[in-house]
C-alpha cells in the first residue's frame, strides 16, 4: 500500500489533487495557480508597455488600457505574488519546523480553493467584456460610476480570494505557534519561517479592513448602499483610508517572506550562519509593526493637512532603519563566507542593489512635500516596481530555483536559470530605472497615451524594450520548468549540498508524512549543526519510529468555494435578471450545506502504521541508490 509510486488514472489524479489536504501538494497548487496568473498579469503588462511604446499609439483603446492596468495590478498582487509565496510557505514552513502538516489541513485546502476560484471569478470579467477599470486601488468616486459589472467582478472576486488569504494566514500562525518540533524554539526558527509568521500576523490584521471595504463597495454597487456616495452623506476618502490600512501592510506581507527567502539563500550559498540573527528577527517584527502605522503616506496629496502629513512622513522614514539593518546583515553574512554563485544566489545578489534602489526612493516619497511632486507620477510606478519586482518577484524566482528540487524532486537547469536571470534582471532595470525620470519630467501614471514633444518619447521606448526582455526571461523559465519535469532526473535530500535547515534532511520531494520520526532541534540551522557534529544525515530523531496520524482528504473545501463562486454571479446579476436572487441564495445554500456536512461528520483521520513508514523509507532509500 505504498503511496509513493502508484500509477493512477487521469480522473483519479485530478480527484486526488482536488481533495488533497497535504501541505506539499497544496503548496504546488498554489505555485502553479500563482504562476498561471503571473503569466497572465505579465501579458497584461506587455500590452500596457506596447501601448506606451510611442506617443499617440492606438494599440488598445483608452477604456481597454484602464482594464489592463487594473487587472495587471490586481492580478499581480492578489493572484500571483501572494499565492506563489503561499506556495513556498505551504511547501517549506512545515518542513522547516519539523511538522507533518499544517495545523488545519482542511482550512488550508479551503484557502487555496477560495484563492483559485476568486481569481478565476475576477478574470471571467474578460469573457464578459466588463472588466474592472478603476485601478487596483479602485478609488470610490470612480469605482462607483464605472459602468457595467467590472467593479462588481473586482469586489466579489477579491472578497472570495481575500477570505482564502485570511484563512491561510491564520493557519500559518497556528502552525508555527503549535507545531514546532522539540527544541525548535522561536529563536531557532529559520528566517523564512519567521517572516511567514510575521506576514501571517499582518494578514490577520490587514485583511479584515479589506473585507469591510469590499463589502461597502459591494453594497454601494449592488444593494443600494451609500457608504461612499458623498451626495447622500457618504465619503469617498473613507475608501482610501480603508484600502490603504489594508494596502500598506499588504506590501510588507509580500516583502517579508521575500526577505525570508533571501535570508535562507544568502546563508546557504555563503555557507555561513546568518549574520545578526536576533536583530534580523527583531527588524522583521518591527517592520511588521510599523507597516500598520504609515498607510496615509499613500494619501499625502488628498489634503489631510500638514500635521497628519508630517506625522505619517516621519513614521514612514522610520521603516528605513530596520530595513537598512537587514541589508547590512545580509552583506555581512556574505562577508567572510564562501560564496557560490548558483542561480538562486544570483537572484539574491541582484536583489540587494535593486531593493536598495527601491528602498531609498521609498524614503524620498515618504517626505510629504517631495511626494506632492512624485505622487501619481511615473516615479511612483518606478518605485513600487523596484520594491515589488526587485524584491518580491526576484525572491519568487530565487525561491522557485532554490526549492524546486524540494517540491518536485528534480533540478531546474542552472545554465537556463542564469540566462533567465540575465534577461529578466537587465530587462527589469531597463524598464523601470528610466521611469524615475519620466516622473521627474512630469508624466502622470495610468495614462493610456501621451502627446509627442513632451520629452517622454525615447524613455518610454526604452522602457517597453526592457519589458520585452523581462518577458523573454519568463518564457525561458517556463521552458526550463517543463524540461526539468520531462527529463525527470531525481535528486537526493540536499541537492545544493549546503542546506542548513530541516527541509534538506528529508527526501525530495518528502513522503506524504514528511518526517518518519519527529526531529530534535539543537540550534539554529539544525541540519548544518548536525553535519558539523559528524552526523552525516543532518537529522536527529526525537522519537522512535511509530504510527503516524494523518488527515483524510476532502472535496468539501472545493464545494464550499464553488457555492460562493455561484452566489457571486447571483449577486451581480440580481438587479437585471430574475434568476439573480435564486442563484445568490442557492450558491450560499450550497456553501452552508458543505459547512454543515463538515461540522456534523467528524474527520478522525487515519494512521500510517510503523511498518508502512519503514517500507516507504526503504523504497525511497533504494530509489536514491539507483
Amino acid at each position, binding site marked *: 500500500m505504498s503511496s509513493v509510486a502508484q500509477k493512477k488514472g487521469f480522473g483519479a489524479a485530478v480527484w486526488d489533487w482536488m481533495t488533497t489536504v497535504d501541505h506539499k501538494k497544496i503548496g504546488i497548487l498554489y505555485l502553479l495557480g500563482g504562476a498561471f496568473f503571473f503569466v497572465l498579469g505579465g501579458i497584461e503588462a506587455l500590452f500596457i508597455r506596447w501601448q506606451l511604446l510611442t506617443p499617440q499609439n492606438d494599440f488598445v483603446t483608452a477604456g481597454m488600457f484602464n482594464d489592463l492596468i487594473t487587472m495587471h495590478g490586481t492580478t499581480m498582487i492578489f493572484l500571483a505574488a501572494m499565492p506563489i509565496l503561499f506556495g513556498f510557505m505551504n511547501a517549506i514552513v512545515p518542513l522547516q519546523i519539523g511538522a507533518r502538516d499544517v495545523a488545519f489541513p482542511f482550512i488550508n485546502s479551503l484557502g487555496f480553493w477560495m484563492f483559485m476560484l476568486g481569481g478565476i471569478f475576477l478574470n471571467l470579467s474578460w469573457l464578459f467584456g466588463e472588466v474592472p477599470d478603476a485601478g487596483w486601488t479602485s478609488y470610490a468616486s470612480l469605482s462607483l460610476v464605472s459602468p457595467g459589472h467590472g467593479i462588481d467582478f473586482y469586489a466579489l472576486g477579491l472578497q472570495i480570494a481575500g477570505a482564502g488569504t485570511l484563512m491561510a494566514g491564520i493557519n500559518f500562525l497556528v502552525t508555527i505557534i503549535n507545531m514546532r518540533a522539540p527544541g525548535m524554539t522561536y529563536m531557532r526558527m529559520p528566517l523564512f519561517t519567521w517572516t511567514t509568521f510575521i506576514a501571517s500576523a499582518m494578514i490577520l490584521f490587514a485583511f479584515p479592513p479589506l473585507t469591510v471595504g469590499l463589502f461597502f463597495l459591494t453594497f454601494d454597487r449592488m444593494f443600494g448602499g451609500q457608504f461612499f456616495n458623498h451626495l447622500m452623506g457618504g465619503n469617498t476618502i473613507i475608501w482610501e483610508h480603508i484600502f490603504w490600512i489594508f494596502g500598506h501592510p499588504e506590501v510588507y506581507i509580500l516583502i517579508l517572506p521575500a526577505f525570508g527567502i533571501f535570508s535562507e539563500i544568502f546563508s546557504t550559498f555563503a555557507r555561513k*550562519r546568518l549574520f545578526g540573527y536576533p536583530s534580523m528577527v527583531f527588524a522583521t517584527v518591527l517592520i511588521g509593526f510599523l507597516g500598520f502605522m504609515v498607510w496615509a503616506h499613500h494619501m499625502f496629496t488628498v489634503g489631510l493637512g500638514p500635521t497628519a502629513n508630517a506625522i505619517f512622513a516621519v513614521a514612514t522614514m522610520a521603516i528605513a532603519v530596520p530595513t537598512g539593518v537587514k541589508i547590512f546583515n545580509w552583506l555581512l553574512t556574505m562577508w567572510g563566507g564562501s560564496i557560490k554563485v548558483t542561480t538562486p544566489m544570483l537572484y539574491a545578489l541582484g536583489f540587494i542593489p535593486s531593493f536598495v534602489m527601491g528602498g531609498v526612493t521609498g524614503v524620498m516619497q515618504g*517626505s510629504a512635500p517631495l511626494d506632492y511632486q512624485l505622487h501619481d507620477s511615473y516615479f511612483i510606478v518606478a518605485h513600487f516596481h523596484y520594491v515589488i519586482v526587485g524584491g518580491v518577484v526576484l525572491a519568487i524566482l530565487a525561491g522557485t530555483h532554490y526549492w524546486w528540487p524540494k517540491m518536485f524532486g528534480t533540478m531546474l537547469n542552472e545554465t537556463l536559470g542564469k540566462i533567465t536571470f540575465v534577461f529578466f534582471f537587465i530587462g527589469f532595470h531597463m524598464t523601470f530605472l528610466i521611469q524615475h525620470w519620466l516622473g521627474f519630467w512630469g508624466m502622470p501614471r495610468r495614462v493610456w497615451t501621451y502627446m509627442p514633444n513632451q520629452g517622454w518619447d525615447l524613455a518610454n521606448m526604452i522602457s517597453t524594450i526592457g519589458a520585452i526582455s523581462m518577458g523573454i526571461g519568463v518564457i525561458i523559465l517556463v521552458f526550463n520548468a517543463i524540461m526539468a519535469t520531462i527529463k525527470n532526473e531525481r535528486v537526493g535530500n540536499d541537492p545544493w549540498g549546503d542546506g542548513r535547515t530541516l527541509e534538506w534532511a528529508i527526501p525530495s520531494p518528502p513522503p506524504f508524512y514528511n518526517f518518519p520520526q519527529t526531529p530534535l532541534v539543537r540550534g539554529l540551522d539544525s541540519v548544518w549543526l548536525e553535519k558539523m557534529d559528524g552526523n552525516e544525515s543532518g537529522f536527529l530523531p526525537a522519537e522512535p519510529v511509530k504510527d503516524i496520524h494523518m488527515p483524510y482528504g476532502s472535496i468539501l473545501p472545493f464545494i464550499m468555494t464553488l457555492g460562493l463562486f455561484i452566489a457571486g454571479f447571483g449577486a451581480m446579476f440580481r438587479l437585471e435578471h430574475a434568476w439573480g436572487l435564486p442563484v445568490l441564495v442557492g450558491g450560499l445554500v450550497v456553501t452552508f450545506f458543505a459547512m454543515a456536512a463538515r461540522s456534523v461528520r467528524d474527520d478522525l483521520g487515519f494512521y500510517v502504521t510503523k511498518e508502512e513508514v519503514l517500507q516507504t523509507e526503504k523504497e525511497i532509500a533504494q530509489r536514491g541508490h539507483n
Partner: protein
Amino acid sequence: MKKGLKKWRLFSLLTVLAIFLAGCGQEEISTLMPAGQVGRDQFNLLMIAAAIMLSVIFVVVTIYTIALVKFRRSKLGEDHIPEQTEGSHFLEMVWTVIPIILVLIFAVVTVYYTYKLGDVSAMGATDEEGNPENLVVDVTAKLYWWEFEYKDLGIITAQELVVPTDEKVYFNLIAADVKHSFWIPAVGGKLDTNVENVNKFYLVFEKESKDLRDGVFYGKCAELCGPSHALMDFKVKSLPRAEFDEWVVAMQNTADEKPVANQKGEEVFVQSGCIGCHATDATAVQGGVKQSGTQGPNLATFGDRNRVAGFMPHDAENLEDWIRDTQKNKPGNKMPSYGEDQISNDEMDALVEYLMGLKVEEK
C-alpha cells in the same frame, strides 16, 4: 593643434551640458526645472534626499562589491568552511544609529517644508478697505476639463489658467464628478480635487510663460478619472502683474463687448445649442452662482488658447474634427458630437472662425 583641442573641449563641454539638460526634461513640464518657490522647495528637498540616498547606496555597493570579489568559493576552495560568526554588537549599533541620524536630518527638513507648503493662513485676508490681499482661484475639475473661477474678480475661464507672476496664488480645489488631481509639474506639486471637500494650497509662478516653447506651462490631471484621464490636460499662462490686471479688465468686459469674427458663426453657435453649455461671457458665473452656459468650458478666451480640448493643436482643422466627433478624440467626455446633418460644412467653417475669434488678448 591647440585650437583644435580647445574646440574639442568646448564641444565635449557642450555635450555634457546637453546631456545634463536632456536629463532635466522640458522646461514647461519638468519638475527638475522649477519655475516657482514651491517647486524649487520641492526640488531642493529632492536634492537633499538624493544626496543622502546616494551616499547610502555608495556604502552598500562598496561593501557588496568587496564581499563578492573577496569571498568567492572558487577562490577559497570547495572544502572551505567559513567561521560561523553570530554577529557583532558594535557593527549592528553602527548601522542602526547612522541611519537613525540620517533619517532624523531628513525628517526635520521634511516637517519644515510640510508646514511651509501647507500654510494657507493668508487666504481670504483683506486690507483695510476690505479688498482681498491675495489672488484666489477656485478650480473645479470635471470630466475631462478644468474650470478656473476668480470669484473676487467676477470672472471665469476654462482649460487655460492665467495667473500673475511673483506672488502667491491661492487655490480652492474641488471635483464636480469623480476625483481628479491638480498638477503643474514645473511650478509645484499636486493636490487632489476631492468630490466632497475643498482643498486649499498655494503656488508661486516666478517665470513668465511667454518665454516657454508654447508660451504656456503644462498642467495635468494626476488621478485616474476614467478613459480620458490621459487627455485631461490644461495650460497655464503666467503674466507680470500689470498685464494680468489688463487681462482681468478685458475679461470683465466680455459681458458687453463680444468679438464676433463671423456673424453666421455666432448664429450657428446659438441655433445649434452650443450656447446652452458654453458661455462666451467670462462673467457668466458670479460669486459661485451658476448662470446659464456653465455645463461646458467657458469660451470667452477660446481664441487665445493654446490647445483644442486641452490637448490638440490649436487650429481650425482640429477644432472641426473635435466638434464632429468628440468621443473619438476624448473617449467618455460629456460633449455631444455634431454630424453634418446637425451642422453643415459651411456652417462649421463659420462656427470655427467665430470660435477662433473669441479673444481678450491683443494679438
